[in-house]
Structure formats: structure tokens, C-alpha cells
């Protein structure tokens, strides 16, 4: 591309002053710290004694460390439950809202509320809702004749945390899908209905193929969020010792770095998380080239 103003004389200085904060951010915030984390992962360092060379040891230990394997598996499980739920539910909501329905504004506002408000504040209420003896969810179950459930006990905590995370995310997904749906020309539906296609056939033959770019985007964003999920997990599953009943990869990184000051282990785990994101994105972009329809 060859557009743009040429800076004259002293304006060159201005130009680099305007770029300076961003350059500092690249050096200290993102690119530089990626390299620094890579380097740190090759050492053992508690921030008190001088760093000890460890080579690949921290990475090898990741595969032997039971706690970390549990955390990593939890992250995968969490994502496998969370991502499809968010994508399917927010697409369903968007399709329903797109039916020229009365009160679209109301529904949009209500579904969007959890996206705006802090996970900490809403998790405080969810903690009350999930209460075993005192929570309203069990009250509801009991009045329908079911046995009460210990929602935040180890066996169910994963599911309960996924529910809250999905609850907090469908509003944003719905908006993304609505934007995609309104971009589909109305004539397509008119043509389909002239050909005798009913609403379900229209959904599968017209809507779904044309909304694949939004599905792609929403899957990508949801997965990246899932790999990094932390706030609700911290708030709902944290135990007295500072550990969690559903430890995920990010939880493990923070615990290792800022509770135990094992900077090398934490860095190796952070690099593995970054690799997970990178591999997933690679798969997604391959999938995009094959299946996503752009007009």
C-alpha cells in the first residue's frame, strides 16, 4: 500500500513520539515478554536466589506433575463443554430474535447484562444460588420433586462453573450472530419460501451456510476465552488454602508464579498455554479455508 502523508523535517520526530508508547508496549508488554517468558521457562528461579539453568527440565516436569496434568485436562474439559454451549445457545437466541419479534430491544439488553457487569459481583450471587441447603436452585429442584444437588462440591463444580460462564457469555455471542444474520439479504428467504422451503429447511439451507463466518469468529473467541477462564473459577471454586476444586491451567500458572514463586514452572506452563492457543488457531484457520463461506 502506498497511501499516506510524508512527514516533513522535524515531523519525523513527532511521528516516532506518537509511536513510542506502542513500541514500548511491544518491547515490555507483548513481544518482549513472550521472549522473556520463553527464556524464564529454561531456568529455575524463586526471585530470591539467582536463577539456575534448567534447560528443558521444566517442560519435562510438566508431563510428570500430576497437579498440572489435572489442571490442563480441566482446561480442555472446560473448553469442550463451554465452547459448543456458547456457540449453539447464542446462535439460537440470535435466530429467535431475528424473527422480527416484539421487544427485541428488551431481550438484547437483558441478555447483554452479564457481559457488562463484573464476574466477581455476579459470582457472589451465584454462590448464594448454588448453596446446598439455602440456595434457590435446590429450592426449585426440591419443589419440582428432585433431590437437592451439591452444586459446588468437587463432583459437580466443573458443570456449575461452566453454566455460570456460559450464562455470562451468550449475550455477546448473540450480538455477534445478530450482526451476521441481519447481513443476509431478505430476498434469499423469499426465494427459498417461493420454492416451498419451510422455516427449518430455510435455517439449514440458507441461514446456517451464510452465517458460517460468525460461527467461525464466535468459536475462535469462545475458545480463547475458555483457555483463559479464571474469574468465575476463582470466585466459585477457591478453597481455604488458596487452591481450587476445579484448577485450570491459568489457575496453576498464577499459583506457581505468585504463591510458590516457581517462575520457571509457571513460565513453562504459560508457554504451553500459548502453544495451545496457537495450535487451536491454526486448526481453526485451516477449517475456515475449507468450510467458511464468504460472499
Amino acid at each position, binding site marked *: 500500500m502506498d497511501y*499516506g502523508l510524508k512527514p516533513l523535517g522535524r515531523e519525523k520526530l513527532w511521528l516516532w513520539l506518537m509511536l513510542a508508547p506502542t513500541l514500548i508496549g511491544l518491547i515490555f508488554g507483548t513481544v518482549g515478554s513472550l521472549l522473556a*517468558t520463553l527464556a524464564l521457562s529454561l531456568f529455575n528461579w524463586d526471585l530470591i536466589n539467582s536463577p539456575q539453568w534448567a534447560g528443558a527440565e521444566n517442560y519435562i516436569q510438566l508431563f510428570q506433575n500430576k497437579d498440572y496434568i489435572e489442571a490442563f485436562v480441566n482446561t480442555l474439559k472446560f473448553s469442550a463443554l463451554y465452547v459448543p454451549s456458547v456457540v449453539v445457545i447464542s446462535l439460537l437466541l440470535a435466530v429467535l430474535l431475528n424473527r422480527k419479534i416484539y421487544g427485541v430491544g*428488551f431481550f438484547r439488553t437483558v441478555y447483554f447484562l452479564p457481559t*457488562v457487569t463484573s464476574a*466477581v*459481583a455476579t459470582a457472589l*450471587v451465584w454462590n448464594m444460588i448454588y448453596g446446598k441447603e439455602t440456595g434457590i436452585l435446590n429450592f426449585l429442584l426440591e419443589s419440582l420433586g428432585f433431590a437437592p444437588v451439591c452444586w459446588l462440591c468437587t463432583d459437580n463444580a466443573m458443570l456449575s462453573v461452566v453454566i455460570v460462564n456460559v450464562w455470562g457469555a451468550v449475550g455477546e455471542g448473540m450480538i455477534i450472530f*445478530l450482526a451476521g444474520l441481519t447481513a443476509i439479504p431478505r430476498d434469499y428467504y423469499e426465494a427459498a419460501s417461493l420454492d416451498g422451503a419451510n422455516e427449518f429447511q430455510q435455517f439449514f439451507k440458507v441461514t446456517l451456510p451464510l452465517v458460517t463466518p460468525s460461527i467461525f469468529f464466535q468459536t475462535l473467541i469462545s475458545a480463547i476465552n475458555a483457555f483463559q477462564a479464571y474469574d468465575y473459577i476463582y470466585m466459585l471454586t477457591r478453597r481455604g488454602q488458596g487452591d481450587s476444586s476445579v484448577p485450570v491451567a491459568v489457575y496453576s500458572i498464577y499459583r506457581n508464579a505468585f504463591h510458590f514463586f516457581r517462575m520457571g514452572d509457571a513460565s513453562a506452563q504459560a508457554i504451553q498455554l*500459548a502453544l495451545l492457543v496457537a495450535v487451536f488457531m491454526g486448526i481453526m484457520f485451516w477449517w475456515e479455508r475449507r468450510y467458511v463461506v464468504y460472499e
Partner: protein
Amino acid sequence: MSKSLYKTLLDVLAYAVLLFGALTMLVPFLWMISVSFRVPAEQFSRNIIPNPFTLQNYFDLFEDLPNQAFLYLTVNSFKLSILAVIGQVLTCAMAAFAFAIVKFKGRDFLFALLVATLMIPPQVSLIPNFIIFKYLGWIGTQLPLIVPAFWGGAFGTFLLRQYFLTIPRDLVDAARMDGASLFDIFWRIYLPLSKPAVAALSIFVFKDAWNDLLHPLVYLPTDMQKTTLTVGLAFFQQQLQMGGKFTVLMAGAFLSILPLLVIFFIAQKQFIEGVALSGVKR
């Protein structure tokens, strides 16, 4: 079945699903508000209408937490969120202007690099940043939360650059003929013309800073006067596990989301369009 009856049935089904969903979304908020107006003896009551109704929890929030902690927490949250908005808008706008309008060597490479950093999980930067801040003696101060807000960001720069590119180029050429400098063009033409994009970015940055749990947890002291509302509420909850008034906790939770609710209802359009934009433009 006639076509119109079929359509009505589907409409009814759609409403049923949407209303059920809306209720699920609303109940936690209604419950939060309801509990915050109850007397402590009624805190686990299944009745959503507080009986008796009391405002006492809101007074307790300011009086019971030692040393007016709730007031400090609120002030800290506002201070850090506003500084984050100023830092991000200013530094992202400057970079976005350079990338969108100015011609210089390495521009496209630098911009591609910046956008690529969107893929780096923030957890990766946290460890080296913590170490740098520790050596600077900043741990336990608010500087690790303020300074990074002033070093730009890929999301904000990308958002503003996209907007800057839609502003007609003729304006720049005309201003240049009149002898305007680069900085004049940025400050007097581009920033004032980009109010919608700046508003959208400000809202996002404010929301993220206000709701942030991790960074204050890592960097700020565990002192109820020095940390932010989110962390303060999390600590408060931990203390309550040993028995205490959830009514006061819910009052705190409700007050903590109130500023964002107000902003959301005022600027709903920017909020929702901002999300839609990030999805469509990619």
C-alpha cells in the same frame, strides 16, 4: 396445518424460549438486589420481596468495613479505570493515526506485528512484567496497573485505525495545503471527528479495568484500603465464609456493578455496536 397457524405456533415457541432465557439472565441480578434490602435474619429466605424492607445494609457497608474501606475501594476503582481510559485512548489514537495516515518505513510490518500480538495470551506477559515491576519496586503500588495502560494496545489501535481510515483523505490534503503539521491534523481533525470510535473504546477499556480481578490481585497489597472493588469484594466474601451477613455483601456487589449499569443504559448503542463491529470487521 395452515401456514399462518404454523407461523403463530413458532412465534409462541420463540417467545417461550426467549422469556425463559431472559428470566435466567435476570434472576441473579434480581436476587442480588432483593437480598441487599433484607434484614440479616432473612438472608436465605426464598421470598424475593424483602420483608421487612431495609436500607441498613447500605449504611453497614460504609460503617462495618473497617476504616471506611468501601469508600477507598470505590475511589481506587474509579481512579484506576479512568486512568486506564485516558492512557489507552491517547496512546492507541496516536499509534492508530500514524498507522492510518502517515507514510513511513516499516509501517506495514509494525502494524502486522502489533495485530499479531492479539494472539498472545495475557498470562504470558504477566510473569516477566511482574519481575520487572518487582525490580523497580512497584509491587504493592498502583503503578503496575497504570503504566501499562499508557503503552498502547493492539485492540484499541486496530479499532481506531479502522475508523480513521473511513475519514475522507481530502480533509488531510486541504489541511496540508494550509500548512497544518502532522500533530495539528491528528489533534484538530482526526480526534474530533472520531468521537464514536473513541467513545466505544473508552467504554470497553473502562469496563475491563473496572471488572479486572487478576492484575489487582497480583500487584496491589492485600489491604482493603489500597485495592480495588473487585478484589475487595472477593476478600470480603472470604471473610464471610466463617459466618456473616450476606445481605451486606450483596449491597456491596450491587453498588459495584451500578456504575457500569448506568454507563450501559446511557451508551447501550455504542456498547452493542462496538461488540458487533469487532465481530464483523475481524
